[in-house]
């Protein structure tokens, strides 16, 4: 351990980082590629919704304007989950393993709460995916997002587990950066979806 620290401190001038080194990790670039293509996917979903919505002559949405209360709270819950995921990485960099794991656990719990509230909202709607076009769009778009949230929760759980196993410190934590980046993406996409599904009916 001491030798390693020495090697890092010595750091010859023309030395290159080796392996999954922070922002130079290939995995980070790969995650950005994934985000680009998934963002395009959500873009096309939102395009489909808006393209169809503006051509509806009848009442849209059929069951009236969407209720904003619970979904706004849910949005806040998801966004705060991102904050805790980010905090985990900060704690890891300071080798505060217990705080880091706790932080990630809170992020996971908030994510699960989001899922729970979303499922409750789904249950509350009098219509389903096969009832009409709006139902198909609403459940498919929120469903796609929910699937991404579930994957994200699994990712956060794995990150928390690996942190608890002591894999990461200030020099090696690429997985945390990459996984958190995915989670932040999932959050930002939600903002777009929320705006499209919940807010645009009030404007169009």
């Amino acid at each position: 351990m001491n030798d390693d620290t020495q090697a890092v401190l010595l750091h010859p001038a023309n030395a290159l980082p080796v392996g999954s080194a922070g922002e130079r990790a290939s995995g980070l670039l790969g995650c950005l590629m994934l985000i680009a293509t998934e963002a395009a996917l959500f873009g096309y979903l939102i395009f489909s919704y808006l393209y169809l919505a503006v051509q509806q002559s009848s009442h849209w949405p059929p069951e009236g304007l969407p209720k904003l209360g619970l979904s706004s709270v849910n949005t806040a819950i998801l966004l705060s989950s991102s904050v805790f995921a980010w905090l985990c990485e900060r704690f890891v960099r300071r080798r505060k393993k217990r705080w880091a794991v706790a932080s990630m656990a809170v992020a996971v719990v908030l994510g699960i709460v989001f899922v729970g509230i979303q499922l409750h909202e789904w249950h509350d709607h009098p219509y389903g995916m096969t009832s009409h076009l709006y139902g198909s769009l609403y459940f498919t778009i929120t469903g796609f997002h929910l699937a991404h949230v579930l994957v994200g929760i699994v990712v956060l759980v794995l990150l928390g587990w690996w942190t608890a196993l002591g894999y990461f410190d200030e020099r090696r934590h690429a997985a945390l950066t990459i996984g958190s980046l995915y989670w932040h993406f999932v959050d930002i996409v939600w903002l777009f979806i929320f705006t499209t599904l919940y807010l645009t009916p009030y404007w169009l």
Partner: protein
Amino acid sequence: MSEPPISAMPGDPPGTVRLARPLQRGTLDEAGKARLTEIWETRPGWRGWLSTVDHKTIGLRYLVTAFVFLLMGGIEALIMRVQLARPNAHVLTPEQYDQLFTMHGVTMIFLYALPVLSGFSNYLWPLVLGGRDMAFPRLNAFSYWVFLFAGIFLYASFPLGQGADAGWFNYVPLSSLTYDPGPNIDVYALGMVLLGISTTVGAANFVVTLLRMRAPGMSIDRIPVLVWGTLTISVGNLFAVPSVSLAFLMLWLDRRIGTHFFDVMGGGARALLWQHLFWVFAHPWVYVVVLPAMGIVSDALPVFCRRPLVGYGPVAISTVATMVIGFVVWIHHMFATGIAPLALAFFGSASMIISIPSAVATFAWIATIWLGRPVFKTPFLFFAGFVLLFVIGGVSGVMTAAVPLDWQLTDTYFIVAHLHYVLIGINVFPVVGGTYFWFPKFTGRMMSERLGRIAFWLMFVGFNLGFFPMHIAGLLGMPRRIYTYAPDMGWNTVNMLTSIGSFVFALGILVFLVDILYSLKRGPVAGPNPWDAPSLEWSVPSPPPPYNFAVVPIVASRHPLWEARMQEEAEKPVRARSHLDEGYLLGQGREALGTTAVGGKPHIILKMPEDSYAPFMLGLFAALCFAALAMRWWGAAAALIFACGVSIAVWLWPERALIQREPAPVQER
């Protein structure tokens, strides 16, 4: 035997893992090369076959599999041409014909045209860039397995007479459950989503590889045009593929779950939604399947003209410009759908303008030949023929970009002629020429010049005889996608000519394949650089060793192997030249050098993964999951999704050897 060091310097105690170390320069002797071979080579036998991550093996797999699909698609076409050779023929029923023309399109456009270019790119990229592998070797293996499984999936129902039959473009409502109740469309829809996964991860791999896996000194203006081509389309794919995956998923949901995305009863907007989502993907796709092939010509043609490509910069820019403009022309497939005049004007103009970058490339090629000293070897014949076919295909496209004329031309055989000139002319001809060119590198043997010439002339004459008359058929009003026609429509002669020509063309392909099989065993042995070509892949043995480059080369120009003999380059001092035999040493396990994106400066030492079964397993579970969805076995699908998740977790588990985690558990501070 003790574990080799993961990252250490001489004198370090065993078990040291340095997170930074200086690059060492030098040469490598035979013992060093033998050590590298042991580090990089794949195990023999079925174990190695399932777990290899070697980009060269994966590249060859893509090529072979793509050629198999080319043959299948070709046979489908020949059967159709037998039916269409004469009016009112009864070789095929309408349903059989509809499945044949659909599967012909699907096979050629999705299972041959891009995968064959992925094959060339996968094999060649690390070699032409001076690297040891792609950025994500396991992902590379995965993208091949999913391609193979998706291809099998897409053909699963065809032998049962239940192949997709609504055209490769699959318009709703013809492809909806009401009008197409069998499994045909479900197989197509789910198969396309599965294939899209392969395409997407492949695209991500190419982009990240380009951003960092290059030799030092290979700045962005020194990369081969093939790389520009594949890079551009990979970025394009990341943004285009989700559109069609979404469309097919929505169609499947409509058909089997009961959603209402494409329900036409409530307003025609929904039928057009399919067309928009489909063409937003499919138009960029047609550039995806030709830009890398144009890059092959831009790189290989100059070798046979004994001079560098004229206008490298403009050609690189024109590649990117074509892809970018390619995203804003999709409505030219929908000119006749009743869209607004403003849209017609915009998309018609963009569709004309997109041919300007192509003009740049065309004149670059002609100028290279004009100013060079052509060598009439087989690859040159294919590349020269390509230029003419490119122009013919391009100008027929310009005609269709004229909106009112398109209202006559669209959905006639004129379009069939156009699309075959661009697809066969701009994809197949460079692929065959490229095969003749790189076969020595892949196998260590030359192909036959004699058979190559015969293949070229049969293909060139047969192709033009087959497809030029189709322009005439279209101008005489023959619609597309008809299984037969009456004898008094004026189409008899052109159809007979086309049928004859297509068989001549097929004969040419057959000669090409015979040449491959013959030359594999009996071709003359080739050295590292039989064509005296300038790029890095020709500096390594034929075939290359598993580690590609013994030392990481240092690059100083676009033409490292020609520098010493090129006017102006030869005058430069030795230290400003490329270094191939002496360079950076990276041999502590599988290692590669990462460089900066634009300037190509050394940036990071990358630890590359060992062979792994995870890509195969994940690919298998994914394919089986889609099969379960097609059969509507929801429980099995859920279980397979879980299996996929476990495979991904295993794959991504942080490894010590890749320096993704601390070697010993971190203690709380």
